[in-house]
């Protein structure tokens, strides 16, 4: 009896444990999950991007490409994830890249200079992963492609190894394009395997994107032309969902189902862009009745594919999702972009209690960082990022006390922000000690613009400003020091006058080749006028200072400086024209250097004063985030702003905070260095094999690699010590730009007339005095009208 009781109790306990286990498993099944997040934050070009996603045999395959190549495999049943490094596979491909000099290609008999192996795509098939590899051979006069080699990738010990033998040979005949004696492979994208077929898209001669289907049993290839095809995906029944973009006054996206067997197409639904922006992450349920899609930051479910019945079921994890999202058997969608892959529930009952809506009118890296971090740190709050919206209706929304959107992000000098700021439609953030502490760390003169009547109302998300910059490298090569650089606009024009003699016989040019005369003059004109508007906000433009500087713009000797005309640009493609026009020369200056702190750039911005007795002040565009005063989730919105402040991208962080002076390495610095060493070793191997004629060029390459490697630690910085030191000197000259009458003159209201006169001035047909007088007249009218 006791035994049976114990047995019964044991059974009950086991049943309870099993039930709990099942419940947990069921709970985990529908959860939101991040499979991969490749953040570009502060890492520059090294972090890589997610290239393709495949779901097969209950596993998700994520192929990442970048400084290191890898594939991540997640078993959906167990939830286990394994990552395999494909770098070795790339090395395998690279080994076959350079042929021995002098070897003759069998097809042509011409001397082969080089051969190259390319990884075309990877795809799961028959329980494994396969790669399509092409081999291209180049000679002086021609190139040939030997393509469509399908090889298995063995995944073992955390590595992917490319099989030696071809498992299959795809018919690559139609996958090449020929121009004269040069044959190249057509670029394919969006590869996806289903059953014994490999699907992809490739551009045709006519520029259309066609659907390519390879039979993986015979290697046969078929090509289908689907007008305006943008993307596709294969469904469980083997039919193909296609997405077509029709651009025009009424732009739309058309989702259709294409049956490759019967070659029939059935249109499923049309999305009009002006109904709420473009759609992405499309998926159709297995029975074909329910449509899922992402629009304006949310995942929608449309029963019966009826858009009027669509309801939001979750927030989208990324703002730039791919066109299609695989729908998993548990109902979750696999939404992905180059930055990551996310599983998202389509069950609306699982939505968080609080939905925070974010409307960015300006993009900033900091916002992407913050959105990702916030989603990870606060799963209890759903963050919906609405990228579709009209800035000009914002004030109306506020006047209607509309609290739909909680956080807005926009340029501080936009007219919409100015309208809200002037009328006080910005929530007071002063009570948030977390925010005030963070703001307390930034330059006071930059922080000023975040306050209204002494109350904190916004936080910065990005800073930028374009102006003239000099290449630090060319500057050194020309034997110039910073002491030689102009300090005023007048000195700058003198400097331009002296440049032709300084550059004579050298391999340098004054400005970048593609900066033509009109563009250069326009950039200088706008630079001067913007600065004048900032420094003399209440004074007329027609002043001795502005008049003098504008006249000097038209006195620039463009011929002597080698600045091309628009007609020269048109002739650039003619034989020898590029070299004759100085295309091979290194440029000293450009007109788009960011004088806020810029990642990656080694240019030195010129900080010029309008005159000898004037302070050099430059307008800085500040992108700000602020909370809607009618938001029902003010506390959560402030939490988000704190996250923004904590995840500012490196350049913004350093530009705003004077206390950050430690130089910053790329997180991938060591990998980059290893890569360089690897290529140096490849070059050293090749020099051993090369004949006398090629040896010299290989030695030259090796010298360059060695030099680069020797200087690598010194030069390879995300934020270098020099960049910080320079920025700290010029930071005091930067002033946050506000909306002004000059902005209005450049806008639609005054735009056409001003542009007409600006062109007249740049062409020399309108004197500077008339341009300035016109501006004053218009601005005077604007000013008298008031805001």
């Amino acid at each position: 009896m006791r035994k049976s009781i114990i047995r019964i109790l044991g059974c009950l306990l086991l049943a309870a444990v099993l039930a709990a286990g099942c419940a947990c498993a069921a709970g985990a099944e529908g959860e939101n999950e991040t499979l991969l997040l490749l953040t570009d934050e502060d890492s520059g070009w090294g972090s890589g991007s997610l290239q393709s996603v495949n779901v097969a045999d209950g596993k998700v395959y994520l192929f990442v490409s970048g400084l290191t190549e890898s594939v991540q495999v997640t078993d959906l049943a167990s939830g286990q994830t394994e990552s395999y490094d494909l770098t070795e596979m790339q090395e395998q491909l690279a080994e076959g890249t350079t042929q021995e000099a002098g070897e003759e290609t069998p097809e042509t008999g011409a001397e082969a200079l080089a051969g190259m192996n390319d990884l075309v795509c990877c795809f799961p098939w028959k329980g494994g992963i396969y790669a399509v590899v092409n081999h291209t051979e180049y000679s002086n006069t021609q190139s040939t492609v030997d393509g469509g080699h399908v090889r298995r990738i063995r995944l073992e010990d955390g590595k992917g190894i490319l099989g030696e033998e071809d498992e299959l040979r795809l018919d690559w005949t139609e996958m090449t394009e020929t121009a004269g004696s040069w044959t190249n492979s057509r670029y394919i994208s969006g590869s996806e395997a289903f059953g014994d077929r490999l699907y992809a898209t490739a551009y045709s001669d006519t520029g259309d994107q066609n659907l390519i289907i390879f039979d993986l049993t015979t290697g046969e290839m078929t090509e289908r032309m689907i007008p305006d095809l943008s993307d596709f995906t294969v469904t469980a029944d083997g039919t193909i969902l296609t997405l077509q973009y029709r651009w025009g006054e009424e732009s739309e996206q058309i989702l259709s189902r294409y049956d490759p067997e019967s070659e029939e197409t059935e249109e499923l639904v049309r999305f009009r862009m002006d109904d709420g922006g473009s759609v992405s992450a499309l998926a159709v349920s297995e029975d074909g009745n329910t449509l899922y899609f992402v629009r304006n930051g949310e995942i929608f479910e449309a029963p019966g594919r009826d858009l009027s019945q669509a309801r939001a079921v979750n927030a989208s994890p990324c703002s730039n999702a791919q066109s299609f999202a695989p729908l998993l058997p548990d109902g979750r969608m696999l939404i992905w972009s180059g930055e990551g892959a996310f599983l998202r529930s389509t069950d609306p009952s699982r939505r968080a209690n609080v939905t925070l809506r974010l409307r960015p009118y300006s993009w900033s890296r900091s916002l992407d960082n913050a959105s990702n971090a916030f989603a990870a740190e606060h799963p209890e709050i759903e963050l919906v990022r609405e990228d579709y919206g009209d800035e000009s209706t914002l004030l109306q929304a506020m006047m209607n006390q509309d609290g739909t959107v909680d956080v807005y992000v926009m340029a501080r000098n936009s007219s919409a922000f100015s309208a809200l700021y002037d009328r006080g439609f910005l929530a007071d953030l002063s009570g948030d000690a977390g925010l005030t502490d963070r703001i307390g760390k930034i330059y006071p003169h930059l922080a000023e613009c975040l306050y209204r009547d002494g109350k904190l109302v916004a936080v910065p998300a990005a800073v930028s400003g374009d102006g003239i910059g000099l290449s630090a490298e060319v500057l050194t090569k020309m034997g110039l020091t910073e002491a030689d650089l102009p300090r005023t606009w007048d000195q700058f024009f003198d400097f331009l006058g002296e440049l032709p003699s300084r550059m004579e016989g050298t391999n340098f040019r004054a400005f970048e080749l593609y900066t033509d005369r009109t563009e250069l003059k326009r950039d200088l004109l706008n630079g001067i006028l913007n600065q004048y508007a900032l420094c003399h906000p209440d004074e007329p433009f027609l002043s001795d200072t502005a008049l003098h500087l504008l006249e000097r713009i038209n006195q620039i000797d463009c011929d002597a400086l080698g600045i091309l005309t628009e007609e020269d640009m048109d002739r650039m493609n003619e034989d020898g024209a590029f070299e004759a026009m100085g295309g091979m020369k290194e440029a000293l200056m450009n007109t788009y250097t960011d004088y806020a702190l810029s990642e990656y750039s080694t240019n030195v911005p010129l900080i010029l004063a309008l005159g000898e007795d004037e302070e050099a002040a430059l307008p800085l565009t500040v992108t700000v985030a602020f909370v809607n005063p009618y938001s029902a989730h003010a506390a959560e919105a402030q939490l988000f702003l704190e996250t923004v402040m904590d995840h500012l991208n490196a350049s913004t962080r350093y530009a705003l905070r004077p206390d950050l002076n430690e130089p910053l390495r790329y997180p991938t610095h060591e990998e980059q260095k290893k890569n360089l060493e690897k290529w140096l070793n490849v070059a050293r191997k090749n020099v051993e094999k090369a004949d006398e004629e090629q040896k010299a060029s290989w030695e030259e390459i090796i010298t360059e690699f060695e030099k680069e490697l020797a200087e690598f630690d010194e030069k390879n910085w995300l934020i270098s010590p020099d960049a910080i030191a320079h920025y700290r000197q010029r930071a005091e000259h930067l002033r946050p730009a506000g909306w002004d009458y000059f902005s209005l003159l450049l806008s639609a209201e005054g735009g056409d007339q001003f542009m007409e006169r600006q062109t007249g001035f740049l062409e020399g047909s309108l004197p500077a005095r008339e341009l300035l007088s016109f501006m004053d007249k218009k601005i005077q009218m604007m000013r008298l009208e008031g805001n």
Partner: protein
Amino acid sequence: MYRKKRLALPFVLPGLAGILLFYGIPFLGGIWYSLTDGSFENAFVGFRNYGNVWQNPMFQLGLRNTLELSLICAPALFLLAFGFSVLLNRIRPAGAFFRSSVLLPYLMPSSAVLLIWLIWFDYGGAVNRLITLLGGNRVFWLQGAELRLPVVLLFLWKNLGFCVVIFLAALQAIPESLYEYATLEGASFGRQAFSITLPLIVPTAFLVFILCVVNAFRIFKEVYFIGGAYPEEPLYTLQNYMNNMFGKLNYQNVTTAAYSFAAIVFAIFGLLFWLQGRAQRGLS
């Protein structure tokens, strides 16, 4: 009788509700906007906005120009329309063709017509060539105060047809027998015009005049197409001011200017109605 009135109520109510919802409430809402500061606090500021707007030099300029242009355009349009309609009423049998074609400019989009206008009034255009042919000096028609002339002419050309059609309808409604009788009685053309035509068309003439004034107040499209949001000062109208305020998202000033202008228009119309009443009595 009382029962009948009550029965009518359900039929009238939907219409009344529509008027109230789509006209009455927005009208009153606009007035409310003009009495607040438009800020987050949306404080009631009484007539402060009116004071500010009325003191604004650009509002004053716009109002002055609008009134000046109306004073030129409205009477000119009225007189021309009356003259043309009398003429067309007398032309037979080809009158029907002219009566129909006179409406064409009214139907043409201003933007399409404007291009032709700009070509004609260009410094080297047809108008200046005609002036030089007649021994005069060329004029910069598209700059400064001179720009008013092309704008006025464009306005007249465009709106004439509509007014002529209304006048013609009134003229054709006068029984021919009245003139025949008057002729038999020995009444002169002038006597017939003042004793028959004018008293019978006064209500129509008044309507046409009101329409002329209303249209003249609304001169904006022509100015905007030529001069943009900030045209030369002599052409800056009240509509420019309101349009620019709207562009700057200053709804308070837009509504204040609009209601101020509406008050002026109502005052003018009140005066016109009073004058009409007196004229009608005098003519009777």
